[in-house]
């Protein structure tokens, strides 16, 4: 009996260790591995398996947010998601599919589904039944095929940017809640929101999410560390899981020095974040358009990025490796 008890105790300890959640070490990519922040690559630029393997070897990361922004037709997107989920399974990386309101495909094929004044970046009008139907179907398909743990919604940057730029109708709280309900009821997955803007943390509709990936850009750019801590702590009180972006560059092609990602990582951890993230969508966009660099080709050709922001990039990789060892 004594031996059995000890055995059971050992098994219990082992079991509880295996279900403990890892610190989330995430990256964010465009479904097509393109280099445009508004998802205008209509074909797969690099193979998902190569992307996942390279990043795994380099950092030991465990989570990948994959964005659908209407690059291709929904049916085609689901086929491409298949490649991501297969790669995720092979390299022990959790895939979080994320849907954006940006949709170049529907803008071409069904312009009546786009907000009439959505400016240079076409965004679907989430009030329309047909839009809800199309997106719910994407969610259902992905859910039934791959059963993701989380399903993500791109923070309606539109929600806040709308009222600032006046290029886009404001999304009302009731409309946002209805949209989340429509998508959420089409999956068993928990809900994630990314990249959540600092001012959004108190909004009613974001409280529907379990996981938030924080947009930390302004704090790392301006080195406003107290504000980053305050924002993270607020988010930690709202969401079960919180990760924060260790962004390495500014929007204009300037590098954010490596010491800042180190500092941001430290603050995020101290403030209760449960993970880190790094947004390759903006990195590849800025490098392509501001520095004439092809980030993905550089990284995937030999497994290391050797471009102008290598110091900051490598620092984040090092932070990930250290975090994975803890």
């Amino acid at each position, binding site marked *: 009996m004594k031996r059995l008890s000890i055995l059971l105790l050992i098994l219990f300890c082992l079991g509880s260790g295996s279900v403990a959640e890892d610190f989330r070490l995430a990256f964010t990519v465009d479904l097509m591995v393109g280099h445009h922040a508004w998802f205008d690559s209509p074909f797969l630029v690099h193979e998902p398996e190569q992307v996942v393997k390279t990043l795994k070897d380099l950092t030991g990361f465990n989570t990948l947010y994959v964005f659908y922004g209407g690059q291709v037709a929904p049916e085609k997107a689901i086929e491409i998601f298949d490649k991501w989920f297969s790669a995720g399974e092979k390299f022990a990386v959790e895939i979080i599919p994320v849907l954006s309101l940006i949709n170049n495909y529907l803008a071409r094929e069904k312009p009546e589904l786009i907000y009439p004044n959505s400016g240079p970046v076409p965004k679907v009008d989430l009030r329309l039944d047909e839009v809800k139907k199309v997106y719910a179907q994407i969610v259902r398909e992905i859910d039934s095929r791959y059963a993701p743990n989380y399903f993500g919604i791109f923070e309606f940057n539109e*929600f*806040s940017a*709308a*009222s*600032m730029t006046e290029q886009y109708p*404001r999304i*009302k*709280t*009731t409309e946002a809640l209805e949209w989340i309900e429509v998508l959420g009821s089409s999956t068993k997955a928990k809900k994630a929101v990314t990249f959540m803007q600092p*001012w*959004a*943390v*108190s*909004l*009613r*509709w974001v409280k529907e999410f379990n996981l938030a990936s924080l947009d930390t850009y302004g704090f790392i750019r301006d080195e406003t560390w107290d504000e980053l801590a305050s924002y993270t702590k607020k988010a930690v009180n709202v969401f079960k899981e919180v990760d924060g972006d260790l962004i390495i560059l500014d929007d204009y092609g300037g590098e954010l020095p490596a010491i800042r990602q180190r500092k941001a990582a430290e603050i995020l951890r101290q403030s209760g974040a449960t993970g880190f993230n790094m947004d390759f969508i903006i990195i590849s966009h800025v490098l392509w358009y501001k520095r004439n660099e092809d980030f993905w080709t550089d990284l995937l050709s030999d497994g290391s990025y050797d471009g102008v922001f290598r110091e900051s990039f490598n620092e984040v990789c090092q932070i990930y490796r250290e975090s994975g060892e803890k």
Partner: protein
Amino acid sequence: MSRLTRFVKYTEKVVRNSMKRLLVLLLMVVLGVSVSAKVLFQDTFDEETDDWKLGMTLEVYEGCLNNDTLGLSLDAELLGEEFENCVIAGTFQINEWGKNGALRILFRYNSLFESYWLSFWPTGIGIHRFTGTWESGTLLGSNDSPAFGALGTHTFKIELNDFTFKVFVDGKEVLKVSDSEKEFPVGGLLLRFDDVALSFDEISVDSL
């Protein structure tokens, strides 16, 4: 005077008096209708309408116009309405003041710095007139009392009678000011949440 004549005269008097009363009654009804306040605008925030242009973190839910974010200046601008003499009234709940907290009710609003500002602070209330820039701000009058800005629910009413403005908080008149410059006879309405977590239950504008 025969009984018959007296009866006829009495009847005539009764009829005359009745007519008089009827006329007075009719006059009172007419006057009553014309002097009773007319609702010019009303919102109980049961749902978000397109009447307002809302700043980015302002939300309408659970029957209120809400802001839970500190550190920002956020406006709710009533679109397409202009008022002259009127009574603006409402109910709001202050949940938290930020370091630079203020609730502003901009009336006879023509632009941010071309209007009158009724401000609630943690320490009291005041009315400013702005004529183009922040520096142009002139305090027309104020009343210091922490009661007006205490956390919790308050009612307010502003009576705009030409260029004399009376402010009532929680049912009591607390401030009366006049603008000798007679700057803005007409304008719209804007609610400004400056670094304050606050919700509006209702707001109305009635004719004076």
